[in-house]
């Protein structure tokens, strides 16, 4: 019963986020994020249908659909990267290199693991690849968050809500995967209870943050006469201070 309630609440919130996104125009601003939401909604509906109509097939499709949504969730990282650093080209260039290197590392690691055939079954291969992709996603997100915090990057309310919800979801999910893959812990009660609650909490954050379209901070246009004057004044003040510094050094006994 409890599982059903969480499922219904979660799916309803997903639908609300998607519908509100289309209604207020956020869908155009964050197309990759909403593609991910659409992907998760589709997965939930397919999961429910298979659970109701053919319970045996649910086990078979669970991990492949989970893998598909994890891969799709990388689009959210790209969206956060694109939107938050679009005015900070220097940092964006550096971050892009780090993200691409990390992504190449993940793909090569996964491909090597698959080619070496170190997995017992195809099912466990998908499960472990999903887990590793989630870990790498967590690492990428950590780098992004560190950059945003360190360089005090300005974020609009919509993007901030998106990042907070996503970080909460990935942060808890990463720990959950680690707990779930501990030997003998596959059916542990804690991770099984933690995930649905986090899921609903994340969707609530997104629902509230993306309810309306909020303006994003932007850079001003250049070339204002007033600013040119201020620049000139700043340079003059700097030269004066430097000159007085030299004067003091000369006067020192």
């Amino acid at each position: 019963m409890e599982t059903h309630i969480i499922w219904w609440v979660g799916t309803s919130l997903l639908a609300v986020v998607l519908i509100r996104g289309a209604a207020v125009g956020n869908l155009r601003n964050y197309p990759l994020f909403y593609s991910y939401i659409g992907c998760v909604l589709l997965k939930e509906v397919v999961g429910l249908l298979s659970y109701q109509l053919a319970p045996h097939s649910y086990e078979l499709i669970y991990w492949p659909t989970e893998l598909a949504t994890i891969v799709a969730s990388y689009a959210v990282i790209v969206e956060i990267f694109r939107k938050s650093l679009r005015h900070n080209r220097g940092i964006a260039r550096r971050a892009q290199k780090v993200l691409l290197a990390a992504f190449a590392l993940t793909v090569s690691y996964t491909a090597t693991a698959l080619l070496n055939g170190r997995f017992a079954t195809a099912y466990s291969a998908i499960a472990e690849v999903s887990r590793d992709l989630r870990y790498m996603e967590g690492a990428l997100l950590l780098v992004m968050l560190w950059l945003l915090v360190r360089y005090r990057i300005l974020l609009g309310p919509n993007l901030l809500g998106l990042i907070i919800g996503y970080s909460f979801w990935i942060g808890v999910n990463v720990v959950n995967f680690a707990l779930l893959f501990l030997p003998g812990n596959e059916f542990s009660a804690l991770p099984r209870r933690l995930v649905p609650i986090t899921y609903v909490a994340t969707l609530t954050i997104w629902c509230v943050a993306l309810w309306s379209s909020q303006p994003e901070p932007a850079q001003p246009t250049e070339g204002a006469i007033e600013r040119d004057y201020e620049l000139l004044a700043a340079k003059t003040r700097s030269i004066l201070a430097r000159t007085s510094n030299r004067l003091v050094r000369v006067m020192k006994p």
Partner: protein
Amino acid sequence: MTVLVPISVLGTLIVVLAVRLFVQSGETRQRPAVTVDDYANAREALNSVFLETALINRIFSVEDAEFVARAATPDVACSFFNERKKFALQWFRKIRKEVARLMDLHLRLAGYTYDPSPMFELRLTAKYLSFMLASNIVLLLLWLLGPFKGTRCISYAIHTAGSFCTTFSLRLDQVNPARLLSGSDSWHTDRPV
């Protein structure tokens, strides 16, 4: 179990940084992007640290202490030592505040640089951290022993402050001031609200 610890740390760090970002965004909205005024203030603060660092060696001058100990009465000597100690403590606290402000400005300005260099960032951060560490030790020494003992540590801290400011000065030259907001601008938007 060995995997669980780093992964748990990773997950926790993500949540902690997300909370930090949320809190910081609230503060940043009240005090938006770096303005030309901030840029000019950073230059002034920098020059003032350079200037004061050059002058402050006098406070810690051992010759003064020796002269007072030789020529003045015990009351005057005691008053002199107390004054110097108070002044040295005040100055060090002020310098710490200035350097912290410069570091904050650097981080806010860093987004506007043409070509950020990771090595430069690392060097600046290392210098900042070593100054903070040295200044903590110096404050303790000043408080315990006064301004005329532990001179090596004090001069090291002063040297680190100067070194940080030199590095910061190079960094400030890389900022593109044309991309900064003027002092009167505040929260800019892509579209009308």
